[in-house]
């Protein structure tokens, strides 16, 4: 397949896009391909002194490539670089090639803030693809708001935030949780749930939403246990015994990091075979990336609720997976967040073209309603609250480390970062 075919085309006009038209983005959809920089003089597209020249535009990539979080953030960096390369191969944005400056947040939140300031103040980058943990996002948020930067944040997270300077390309908590719980209830007849998580904000907020949903919106369902273990906890035998005692239909697990590996290995060693679904295990914290560390044979049969799985069978995704492996190697796996990170540069490109400018204020104004028909996860659209409309899917872990998609919502799920009735 030629280079041409393997690159997504965000300008393509689809029936759906035309039907959904009527916003600022319609203009971008009918813009001819291969825009020339000369049609967009730098003085017109950059009125705020960003790093835009007659043939280049500079953006920042801000992730941890050293320290604890490198394990998770590496995939995001790779996806963002792939997207940038593909956009450049198509002729860039407004006729300008994207160049990037990569900074290392080093898994340290003050470092993230410092590097963000450097990118915005010294380098004057037009936008930043970055951050992974909520802690790092919270650390850079004041910097982005003070210097009016524009951040594309890829991770699924707990919600309860909406900044004018951030586009959240991952799902907020309700998008990831509710459809999955309904699914196990309706198709598996699950009635009782044991909530388990690592002890920090994301699992706690997510489980709070899960509990509210189970108790208030699912008939006859109950939570039979809720537990948190310190980050890095490696001994789960006690909780496994407790789960045995309570006999829940579903173990709802939001364990992260090294604890994840210990949890699934010990679950298997304790004789709980997840393929038998007694109890069934549903997680929102294990992507294909994590399975590499856990080992497919240890988690086979578990269900995960995400918006993206590498095994998704659609033309966009097949091309994306192929391009990703060509660039980064055949043994790569692509998890939910990696795909969300890949959307960042494409969404920014679409917003810039809709705005006809790199100015942050104009890009922000153009962002709501921006849609991407070429996303590997399918069709996504930016909501006015800066999160994405996207589908929720449930996958079942296979021994080879991939998920088999067993369910997806019929419609896009509306992002709702401040869910009423769930607080």
């Amino acid at each position, binding site marked *: 397949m030629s280079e041409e075919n393997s690159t997504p085309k965000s300008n393509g006009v689809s029936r759906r896009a035309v039907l959904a038209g009527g916003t600022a983005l319609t203009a971008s959809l009918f813009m001819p391909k291969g825009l020339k920089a000369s049609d967009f003089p730098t003085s017109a597209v950059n009125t705020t002194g960003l790093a835009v020249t007659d043939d280049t535009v500079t953006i920042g990539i801000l992730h941890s490539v050293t320290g604890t979080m*490198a394990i998770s953030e*590496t995939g995001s960096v790779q996806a963002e670089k792939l997207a940038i390369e593909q956009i450049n191969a198509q002729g860039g944005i407004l006729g300008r090639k994207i160049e990037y400056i990569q900074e290392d947040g080093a898994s340290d939140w003050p470092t993230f803030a410092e590097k963000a300031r450097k990118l915005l103040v010294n380098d004057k980058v037009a936008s930043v693809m970055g951050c992974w943990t909520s802690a790092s996002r919270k650390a850079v948020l004041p910097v982005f708001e003070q210097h009016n930067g524009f951040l594309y944040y890829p991770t699924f997270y707990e919600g309860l935030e909406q900044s004018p300077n951030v586009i959240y390309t991952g799902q907020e908590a309700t998008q990831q949780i509710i459809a999955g719980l309904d699914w196990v209830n309706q198709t598996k007849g699950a009635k009782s749930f044991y909530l388990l998580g690592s*002890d920090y904000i994301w699992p706690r907020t997510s489980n709070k939403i899960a509990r509210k949903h189970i108790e208030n919106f699912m008939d006859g369902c109950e939570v039979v246990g809720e537990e948190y273990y310190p980050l890095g906890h490696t001994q789960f035998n006690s*909780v496994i015994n407790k789960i045995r005692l309570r006999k829940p239909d579903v173990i709802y697990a939001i364990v992260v990091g*090294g604890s994840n590996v210990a949890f699934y*290995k010990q679950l298997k*060693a*304790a*004789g709980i075979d997840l393929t038998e679904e007694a109890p069934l295990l549903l997680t929102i914290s294990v992507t294909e990336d994590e399975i590499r560390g856990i*080992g497919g044979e240890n988690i086979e049969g578990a269900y995960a609720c995400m918006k993206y799985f590498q095994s998704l069978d659609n033309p966009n995704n097949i091309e994306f997976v192929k391009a990703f492996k060509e660039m980064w190697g055949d043994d790569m796996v692509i998890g939910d967040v990696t795909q969300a990170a890949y959307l960042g540069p494409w969404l920014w490109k679409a917003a810039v073209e809709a705005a006809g400018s790199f100015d942050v204020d104009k890009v922000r104004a153009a962002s709501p309603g921006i849609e991407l028909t070429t996303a590997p996860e399918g069709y996504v659209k930016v909501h006015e609250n800066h999160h994405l409309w996207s589908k929720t899917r449930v996958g079942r872990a296979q021994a080879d480390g991939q998920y088999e998609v067993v369910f997806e919502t019929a419609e896009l799920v509306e992002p709702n970062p401040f869910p009423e009735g769930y607080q």
Partner: protein
Amino acid sequence: MFADYSMSELGAIFAMQGFAGLILFSVFVLMALGLAIIFGQMGVINMAHGEFMILGAYVTYIMSNIFADYMPALFGMYFFVAMIFAFLASGALGLFVEWALIRHLYKRPLDTLLATWGLSLILQQIYRSVFGAREVGVSIPDWMMGSLPLTDMIEVPINGIFVMILAVTISFGVWIMMYRSKWGKQVRAINQNRVMADAVGINTAWTDRLTFGIGCGVAGVAGSAFTMIGSTGPTAGQLYIVDTFLVVVFGGAGSLLGTIASAFSISQAQSIMEFFLSGSMAKVLTLLTVVGILMIRPQGLFTLKLRK
């Protein structure tokens, strides 16, 4: 909480919970033995202990790949070979580190803390560069996974039994070396009075190096065993370091029996509390208790009478 259950169910759960406590005990013993030798006998605060363990884990990972590629028929047995290599690799690195770094700092104990902490960061980054930032999946032979049904309701994890046997074996080995070998006598002599030991002709420099090496080697074996129950990644060693120091300090530095007694009490306390409270709460209470006892008895549970 227990009203709805029959006696036999409860009995089974408590039996399994007791077993979970014993597994935790064995894990603590394995973690702490290497450090008990290094910190207890030499007074070196080795912050890189976790990274020596992870070296053992990575050696196991390499061996599993070698066996899977070249000797698939023997894959079921690779773990034993891997543990020997883990001991040798971590031990060799320990000898080298002692020679290059630690021996210059014996008179400056607080500097060893900083130096070994730096060493742990260096090792983490080396692992990250060599093996990648992501955790690696170590495939374990099938016979070591899964559980052993003792009765209809009681199931015990096979890897738990394996860890227990290993903990007993290594403790016994360390005890033999410490209390029944010439090297052990020399180590204890140096610990009691370094100048005098030197004067009677003990090669203190070499004994120190060997002690450090053996301590690191034991850590490597522990790391190798932990691939069965935990993760293998560049920073996974950090998961163990706090518990390890806790066990050694609480037991009383310099006492093998103290280390084992402290591992037993901490693991039982934690495992019982985890069952009745939540995981985070159990951890908090365990730490509080340990801190409380150490305030009353700063020297730890067991101490040797030393003339310094």
